[in-house]
């Protein structure tokens, strides 16, 4: 038999939102429920066409509360499920995000950030929802939040979001922004068989032995598909290992600490940061999302001008990469944090740096992307001071 020559994927012109869709399909997402909102709409539009073609389901719900409700239901029924929205819709989803955490339902929520608060600036970028992603739902909880910076990133980050959601049975939030979502650029996406796909843990025992919220070494209980005889009770109330509400302190503490443990003991796997020119850097920039692009350009230019600058890109925003920031703070005289808000990640960097170096905030809140020039000015100014 003649060997099939591997066809090399050809470059395409795609926007960030389109790459999110390609990723969702590549990783096996079969359900989307949502309510269209700028600047996330292309994700819903494209999946409305592509999901039915792939045997999946697209449903437009009456609002974002119902959207995430439908996503949670689909996931419990066995589907890989997602939704996409922007600030105002993300606010409406907060209650159900908490439900998905407590009921341990894997799902992916893409929030394409636009200017806010309220209806705000629908067609302009902002990174105003970083802390809403972390703390928007009530109660003491951990949250996995990833940020995408480029079109290719939008693909890789969405794939990772699904994989983390499935592996740890938890909602994962992808933060994109108007610039990332709507910038079209040339990109080569991996072939479907090159994409790593992780499935949720399934019970290895017969139905009569199944205990739905039983602890495991990883802290993640096996998740049975509904309709196959495995008994399960799903609730937002704090529950015992069989899924029924409990008020016993030992069961409450055990349940809540397991939710924390299943994330924290895998933090190395969850943390995704990228280093640029940091080996020889004295001053560092920490950036994420669309601002990363300006930061990379700025660091390149600053180095040409003789400033020993480096860049740490954060893809995982939460759990916050404390150790990586602490290490960076130890070897740097200064960390600059440019972002499209008034210091949401900068405050985290300040906390994690523990006073080991100075931290400069560079916030821009006028609806425009921070440009390389603003970052270069700050880098040169401070390093000459």
């Amino acid at each position, binding site marked *: 038999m003649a060997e099939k020559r591997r066809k090399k994927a050809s470059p395409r012109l795609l926007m960030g939102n389109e790459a999110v869709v390609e990723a969702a399909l590549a990783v096996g997402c079969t359900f989307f429920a949502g309510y269209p909102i700028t600047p996330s709409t292309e994700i819903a539009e494209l999946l409305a066409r592509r999901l039915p073609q792939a045997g999946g389901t697209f449903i437009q719900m009456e609002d974002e509360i119902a959207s995430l409700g439908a996503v949670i239901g689909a996931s419990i029924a066995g589907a890989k499920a997602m939704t996409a929205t922007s600030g105002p819709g993300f606010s409406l989803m907060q209650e159900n995000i908490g439900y998905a955490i407590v009921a341990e339902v894997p799902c992916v929520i893409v929030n394409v950030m636009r200017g806010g608060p309220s209806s705000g600036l629908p067609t302009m970028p902002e990174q105003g929802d970083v802390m809403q992603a972390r703390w928007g739902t009530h109660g003491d909880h951990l949250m996995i939040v990833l940020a995408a910076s480029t079109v290719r990133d939008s693909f890789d980050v969405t794939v990772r979001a699904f994989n983390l959601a499935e592996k740890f049975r938890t909602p994962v939030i992808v933060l994109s922004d108007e610039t990332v979502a*709507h910038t*079209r*650029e*040339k990109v080569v996406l991996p072939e479907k068989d090159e994409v790593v796909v992780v499935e949720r843990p399934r019970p290895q025992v017969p139905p009569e032995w199944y205990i739905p919220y039983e602890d495991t070494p990883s802290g993640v209980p096996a998740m049975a598909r509904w309709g196959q005889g495995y008994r399960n009770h799903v609730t937002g109330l704090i529950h015992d290992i069989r899924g029924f509400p409990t008020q016993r302190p030992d069961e409450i503490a055990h349940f809540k600490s397991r939710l924390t443990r299943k994330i924290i003991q895998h933090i190395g796997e969850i943390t995704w940061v990228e280093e640029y020119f940091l080996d020889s850097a004295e001053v560092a920039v920490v950036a994420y999302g*669309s601002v990363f*692009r300006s930061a990379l*350009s700025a660091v390149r230019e600053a180095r040409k001008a003789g400033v020993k600058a480096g860049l740490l890109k954060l893809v995982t925003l939460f759990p916050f990469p404390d150790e990586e920031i602490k290490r960076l703070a130890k070897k740097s005289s200064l960390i600059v944090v440019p972002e499209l808000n008034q210091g949401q990640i900068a405050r985290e960097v300040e906390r994690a740096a523990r006073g080991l170096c100075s931290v400069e905030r560079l916030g821009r809140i006028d609806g425009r*992307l921070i440009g390389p020039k603003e970052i270069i000015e700050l880098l040169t100014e401070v390093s000459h001071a």
Partner: protein
Amino acid sequence: MRYEIRLSGSGGQGLVLAGIILAEAAGIHDARFVAQTQSYGTEARGGKSRSDVVISDEEIDFPHAESLDCLVAMNQDAFDGYYRELKKGGVLVVDSTLVEQTVAPHALEFPFTELAREKVGREITSTIMALGALSVITGKVSMAGLTRAVKGRAPGGTGKINLKALKMGAKIASELLKDR
């Protein structure tokens, strides 16, 4: 070298699609690096609209156009609004059907909208005509690339008239440059 092009006019003139076609021609067919962005109001039609395309031989970090190498103004509002963002010595292309006042003596004026209406038969092809002119004037994108991108991206059934507009744009630009 980084080359920044802005296509500007009003919502409904097809500027975003023209930007996509330009980016696809330069990025996919001509194999350069490109970044295409757009800015628009919350209106569906009317209101200022623009589409920026950055073309480079190197990977593009900052995706927005900040200092324009080339401005295409498809109406007066766009000219007035963006003229000051054009670099000194930058290429200025205006649609003389809709831009009545240009304070710039170096403006290259073409009646894109009139020609699109009278000679092509569809006014909306004016922006594609401007791309044809752009190819000849700037040399930053090939006609072969634009032709392929138009074929791939023109909405159902409009491929032919858009290709006609594209060629006409290249022709009138060559004629104007010959005279200069």
